[in-house]
Structure formats: C-alpha cells, structure tokens
C-alpha cells in the first residue's frame, strides 16, 4: 500500500467511527428519547462536524484535513474524559455544569456494568485521534 492510499484508509476509518458515533448519539437522543445533558452537547458539537469535514478531505485526498479535524476531536476527547470522571465521582459535583433537565452525573445507559455513553465517546474520540495522527505521519514521509 502506498502512502496515499494508506492515509486515505486511515481518514476513512476515522470518518466511519465519527459517523457511527453520530448516528448512535442521534439514536439515543431522537429514537430512545434520552435527553442529552450539557456535556453531551459539547461532545456532539465536536463529533458531528467530523462526519462532514472528513469526507471533504477524502475526495480528492487532501491530507490537511487532519489539521482541521484534530482540534475538534481533541476538544471532544477532553469533554468526554471530563464527563467520565464526573460520572465516576473523581471530579466533585460542585463544579459540574448541569441543567435541570438532565444531570450530567446521571448514567442513562450502563451496559455490562461499566459502558456508559461518555465512555463510548472517549473510545471513539481516542480512536479518531489515533487514526488521524497516523494518517498525518503517513503523509509526512
């Protein structure tokens, strides 16, 4: 595989993850009617645009898209990690930014006893960042 197609595949992988996450978030919010809390919204703000930005860099392959996408993914990752720590109780409740409707510390989903929505977000943002960074190094060679 040459560098170009390797980079393309990596960015495509990042797009796949972003799209699955976006559709998943929409499923939780719009179909299951779980109200997203404030922190969820900040993570959505970082995740949803990736679904649109990344394909712009895929056709034709434009490696700079990594630079445009990484800040979103990085900030989304920070929000997701903050959210996980908040749920885990590591961050004290007094500093939680919460509305009345949906407290951020509430776990609406808990699969297998530990998989929460913010944890999924951390995994997704981490994978996107990893793929984009890999794509960046592929292209700089």
């Amino acid at each position: 595989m040459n560098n170009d197609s390797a980079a393309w595949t990596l960015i495509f992988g990042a797009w796949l993850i972003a799209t699955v996450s976006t559709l998943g978030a929409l499923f939780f919010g719009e179909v299951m009617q779980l109200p997203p809390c404030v922190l969820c919204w900040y993570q959505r703000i970082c995740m949803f645009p990736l679904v649109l930005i990344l394909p712009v860099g895929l056709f034709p392959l434009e490696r700079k898209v990594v630079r445009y996408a990484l800040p979103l993914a990085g900030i989304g990752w920070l929000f997701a990690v903050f959210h996980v720590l908040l749920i885990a109780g590591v961050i004290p409740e007094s500093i939680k930014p919460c509305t009345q409707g949906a407290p951020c510390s509430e776990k609406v989903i808990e699969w297998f006893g530990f998989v929460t929505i913010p944890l999924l977000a951390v995994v997704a943002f981490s994978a996107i960042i990893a793929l984009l960074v890999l794509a960046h190094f592929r292209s700089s060679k």
Partner: protein
Amino acid sequence: MKQKTLFIAAAVVLLLAFLLATVFYKSEKAGQSTQLAAADLARLVRMHSPTYGKADAPVTIVEFIDPACETCRAFYPMVKAMIAANPDKIRLVLRYAPFHNGSDKVVVVLEAARKQRLFWPALERLLATQAEWAPNHTPQVALVWKQLQGLGLNLEQMQFDVTAPEIAGVIAQDLEDARALNVTKTPEYFVNGRPLPSFGFEQLKRLVDDALAATRP
C-alpha cells in the same frame, strides 16, 4: 473510483442500519412495557416495600420514587389525594429508585425512620423540604437530619439504625427490580401491573380510574 464506491456503500449501510434499528426499537418498545410488568408481577411488589392504604385494596399503585426527585415531590400530594378520594380502594406501594447521586443515603434515613413507624411523616417532611437538603439537585444526607426534627423520631436511635445491613439489601433489591422493569426515570408508576402509556399525571389518573372501574361489579 474504488474509494468512492467504498465510501458510498459505507454511508448507505450505516444509514440503513440506523433506520432498521429505529423501526426495530419502536416496535419492540410498544410490546415490551406491558409484557414486562405482566411477566414480572413479583418484581413489582416486595415484602419489604413500604405500603400505604388498605392491604387488600383492589387497586395497587406501585411507585418507584427518588426522595431527591422534584417530579416525585410534585406528584406525591396528587397521588395522596387520589387515594383519599377513594378510601380503601387504592393501595400505594413505594419502591426506591435513588437515581440522584447520594439519594440512597437519604433512603437509608427514611428506612431508619420506618423502624420507628414514622416512615410516612418522615417521607412527607423530606419531600416538602427537598430544596433545603438537596441544593442544586445534590442530596446531602447531612442536611437531612435537621429537617426531621419535631416528628417524634428518636434521632439517636436512627443514627444507629442507618448502619443496618438489611437496609442496604432493600435498596439493592429495589434498584435491581427497577432495572429489570426498565424503570430509568422517577417517578414511575404501575397500576395493577400496568405501566403508564406515556408520562403524565393525567395518564396515571386514567389508569387508576380504569382499574377502579374494573373493580366495580
């Protein structure tokens, strides 16, 4: 070209999966809630649950309650009024669903009050003063004790009773049943085993009225 095909195929597959999941979820949900409660009547009422009203009343309202939940506070007097309007016809069974962080500790205090046969006055006092001990929706058990003064409770005895292991067992059982019955929000009501079709006091009232009508010969 191959890349374009791959991208479009992936997009179509993901969208289709989303739509299928939506259709599946909606049809599943419609059948599920009635079926759940019917199959799990044993999960609805436990021996340990606090009960209000006549034991053999024909209509049983099971309420999953969180003492720190604002909507629970708002609904409580309305449910109470419904029971008062139909004496001996309605029984209220409370199940704990302390979803607010720290709310379980407040439930423990209520259970300690129950040992002194003052559960309902204590619950009513705590619901009425909810804003005092749960500022910003954050229950703080330390603030609860002050609210319980004047009810005739032996607070010293309660300080001892809150450590009783069976109380923790009650809460764990209730939370497990809540999970099994798909109770994710409070308050959640079941009237003779039937869940609310959608949330609201009107819907609850209609279910209760239907159940009352069914008991009349």
